[in-house]
């Protein structure tokens, strides 16, 4: 999972004019940047879509002002806390010894840090720890999300690899998280001092929903593969240049007020 700095100082300091020409799109956000605008004229002019602008406003908020949305979501917490467990599960599934990649790469236009840079020389892998059995099955049954497709193109470009794999992995939620879910349920029914059979069953169900040791490993891993597409990669720089201009616009509008 590509992580973003949390609770860190903004990269670009206030009161100085940021140099947006050095802005690079994170691989995980390239997908939004590459969405096409609705109007034909905008499309032909290579302008940014509304989705791209929304994503860039978030990037601006994160980079310039050090403010981030949605950093405490439970799925994200699980993903962060269980990352190593997910890599181990994928290692066992593939029968390959994987090591967490800690090298963040950048080129002139994009930056990113994939989860695994496989030493087979062919692929890089990103891992998504699914929140629940349902979200895992949904990821399995849906066609590959375009955000992941573009994230893969970004990584293939950065790591110079012909293939990107995105692995959805189902691992247990951390103990504290399961206990927190149980407490939340008990709180919602008024913290009864005694647990009847219904409550005990409900607590057991919460635990079952978040633990998967009873499932064979083959049921707990699913992969989408993305082949490198140099034509699509070649389209990224023009959009990043537009993104830089849009961020400059945000900055100027703010200081002019």
């Amino acid at each position: 999972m590509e992580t973003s700095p949390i609770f860190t100082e903004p990269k670009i300091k206030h009161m100085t004019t940021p140099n947006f020409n050095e802005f690079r799109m994170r691989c995980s956000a390239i997908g939004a940047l590459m969405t096409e605008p609705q109007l034909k004229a905008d499309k032909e002019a290579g302008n940014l879509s509304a989705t791209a602008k929304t994503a860039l406003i978030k990037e601006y908020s994160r980079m310039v002002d050090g403010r981030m949305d949605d950093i405490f979501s439970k799925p994200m917490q699980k993903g962060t806390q269980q990352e190593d467990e997910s890599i181990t599960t994928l290692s066992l599934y593939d029968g390959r010894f994987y090591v967490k990649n800690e090298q963040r790469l950048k080129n002139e236009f994009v930056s990113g840090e994939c989860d695994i840079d496989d030493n087979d020389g062919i692929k890089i892998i990103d891992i998504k720890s699914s929140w629940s059995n349902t979200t895992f099955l949904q990821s399995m049954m849906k066609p590959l999300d375009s955000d992941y497709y573009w994230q893969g193109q970004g990584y293939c470009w950065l790591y110079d690899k012909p293939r990107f794999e995105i692995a959805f992995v189902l691992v247990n939620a951390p103990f504290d998280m399961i206990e927190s879910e149980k407490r939340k349920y008990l709180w919602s029914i008024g913290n009864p001092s005694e647990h009847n059979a219904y409550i005990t069953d409900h607590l057991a169900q919460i635990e079952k929903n978040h633990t998967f040791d009873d499932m064979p490993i083959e049921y707990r891993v699913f992969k989408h593969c993305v082949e490198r597409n140099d034509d699509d990669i070649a389209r990224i720089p023009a959009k990043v240049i537009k993104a830089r201009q849009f961020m400059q616009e945000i900055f100027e509008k703010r200081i002019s007020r």
Partner: protein
Amino acid sequence: METPAIYEGAKVLTTKGLFSQENVRKKFEELLGKRAPQFIASVLQITASNDLLAKAEPHSVLNAAAMAATLDLPLNASLGFAYIIPYNDRKAGKCLAQFQIGYKGFIQLAQRSGQFKTIASTPIYEGQIVEMNPLTGFKFDFALKTSDKVVGYAAFFSLVTGFEKTFYMSVDDVKKHAGKYSQSFKNGYGVWKDNFDEMACKTVTKLLLAKYAPMSVEMEKAAVADQAIIMNDSGTDVTYIDNHEEIPMTKEDIQRNRLQKLIDNAKSADDLLKIRAQVPAEMHDLFNEIAEAKNF
């Protein structure tokens, strides 16, 4: 594997070196008599065969071994009486050896006291609980098992005086207990993760004895020293490092754990060769050490 070195004055002391010192050998002879050399050899073998334990501070290994010798519990893992477990204390920047007693160890000590007629513990399966009374206790019918689902763990003892007691904890209670007392359980690794049944049986046995049994001096000592880093060789000064310290696994621990699981899963020598080809060169020694046990 080379054991870690500590400096005593100008001399470098390894775990092996520490155990070869005259005063140390004498101490074990006092405790174990003629069995001392065999016991020391088993400690050194355990230390050498465990990468993390090999890094542990020699004196913490000595104190944990002295506790096992004091209680006269062998450290052979296959017997399950007592263990020396490494703990990587990142806060202090060192690896320490922790003494842990297995539930069979508690049972052994209880039997030795001469006061127990029976003592046992077991997982309880769905359907086996026939009565749950908070005052008089639990009753089980082991013939009524309806599925393979473990719902709890029970321990039981009866004394020669006729007093008997059963203690039961649901799986959820055991997990809460583990979460409260073991950081490694909360983080999803360690003996609780790898050997839940045995740890659960130990928990109910230990709590049953602590709450209801007449404790011999040895049993009290064992209860205090269990899961502790022993700070002196008499075992009177202990600290429960796993209970309150945040001990996240190091990157090396995680990779070792992953490699161990991958090697455990290997079905043939060919599989092992494929795995070895992916392992970074700096981990080849570790790979060889773990793979040796596969014996294809």
